[in-house]
């Protein structure tokens, strides 16, 4: 956030990529794209390309980590070395460990893990191409992959970010806006209850601006949710036509 620059991010009410302040980037979601995984999802969100795969419920290993009351949910957010301009050193870094932790906690709210004691569910998300907003794209895709795996869930998790650029609250920051903007608020919400299951923020916001950003993100999540549902339905439509 907040690298200095002379770049004007909003001109005549339009952003550099031509979007209005409350407009999402183009999103396409496809469910069931991997053969080996129990559930999977491929998602494109602007320039982000994300692949999510779910394995499980399966035997919990190592055994001592198993929980007698519920399944353990593991989430691995992983950036491919070629996903960013400067090669990302393979393997988990501090950023991806943190993202994995809070994303797992968000999903724990919806997956009925108590139905599968002593087991584990692995959720793997590969960021193939990154262009700001990868944690939201990843979590949105992971939620579809979990549903595709047939895991019982209370709701879908839908993640969208809002932020602030040139003093204006906007939806879904792109790369330049993420680098040179003033604030970023990634959020994940459940559509039926309105619960917030993931919330982070960095930058500089007043209380009023936060309210605007959060409302904008929640509103936009409804659109993303429809795309998530459509992706799951499409998978079966395609199967039926074969």
């Amino acid at each position, binding site marked *: 956030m907040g690298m200095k620059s002379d770049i004007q991010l909003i001109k005549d009410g339009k952003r550099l990529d031509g979007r209005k302040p409350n407009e999402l980037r183009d999103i396409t979601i496809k469910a069931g794209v991997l053969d080996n995984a129990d559930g999977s999802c491929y998602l494109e969100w602007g320039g982000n390309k994300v692949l999510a795969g779910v394995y499980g419920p399966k035997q919990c290993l190592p055994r001592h980590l198993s929980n007698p009351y519920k399944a353990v949910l593991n989430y691995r957010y992983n950036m491919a070395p070629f996903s960013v301009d400067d090669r990302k050193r393979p393997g988990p870094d501090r950023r991806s460990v943190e993202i994995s932790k809070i994303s797992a906690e968000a999903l724990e709210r919806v997956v009925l893990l108590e139905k599968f004691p002593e087991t584990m569910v692995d959720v793997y998300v590969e960021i193939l191409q990154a262009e700001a907003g990868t944690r939201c794209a990843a979590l949105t895709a992971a939620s579809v992959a979990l549903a595709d795996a047939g895991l019982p869930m209370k709701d879908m998790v839908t993640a969208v970010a809002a932020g602030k650029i040139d003093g204006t609250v906007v939806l879904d920051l792109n790369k330049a806006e993420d680098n040179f903007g003033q604030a970023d608020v990634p959020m994940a919400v459940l559509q039926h209850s309105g619960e917030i*299951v993931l919330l982070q923020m*960095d930058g*500089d916001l*007043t209380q009023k601006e936060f309210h605007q950003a*959060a409302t904008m993100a929640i509103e936009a999540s409804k659109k993303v949710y429809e795309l998530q549902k459509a992706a799951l339905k499409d998978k079966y439509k395609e199967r039926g036509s074969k």
Partner: protein
Amino acid sequence: MSVEEVALEVKGDYVRQLAAKGMRQDKRKMDEYRPIKVTPNFIPHALGSSYVELGKTKVIAGVSMAVGTPYPDTPASGTLMTGAEFAPIASPLFESGPPRPAAIELARVVDRGVRESKTIDFDKLCITEGEAVWMVMLDLHVIDYDGNLFDSSSLAAISALLNARIPKYEDGKIIREETSGKLPVSKKPVECTFAKVGDVLMLDPTLAEEQGMDARLTVATTEKSICAMQKGGSGSFSLDEVEGLIDQAFKKGKALRKLL
């Protein structure tokens, strides 16, 4: 499962029962901090340091500095690195070894509060553009653990940064004994953490309350703005709850700032 983990689980259940009746184990109000003690410059040999007690939680923050090459995208700015160690001395629940996700999260949330508040003037930490800048290293050392490491550590962090001095740098050498001024720190970002236990929201959770909680929210504020937030735990918040907590964080933040 160790004996300590089992005992903690029992305490967590107890905390939940109490919260349902609107009570806390230590009889605190829901919006009340445990006693806080800040001792700046606790380790005089370090360039900056502070020791914070928050109830039974004890944390030391230390500042070290080194000269290094700047990041290519910010050639005229110094850098900040924050690390956290849950030393096994602090709790039977901690083990030695590389930092676990909880320690990484703590370091990153404290870092974000400091960095995003723009309290450190990184431009003043430039020695030669593109070649040499000061790298500030902020290390958080948990030495006794009874919950709410976010607030205690961020308080120790900003307190340590406020009393940190920059060593002298001459002919490519750092002269630790001499100082070339104080670290340019202008604001006092502080973090307030709330736990949600059942439907009850409480400030400054103890370890037992963290065990019993469904979710937590940390809000970092300066005088006027929110500079960082982090939700944790497998529970959730409504937007109204979040906004109410932000409001409280501003109020409680004022009191915390007076301790610095």
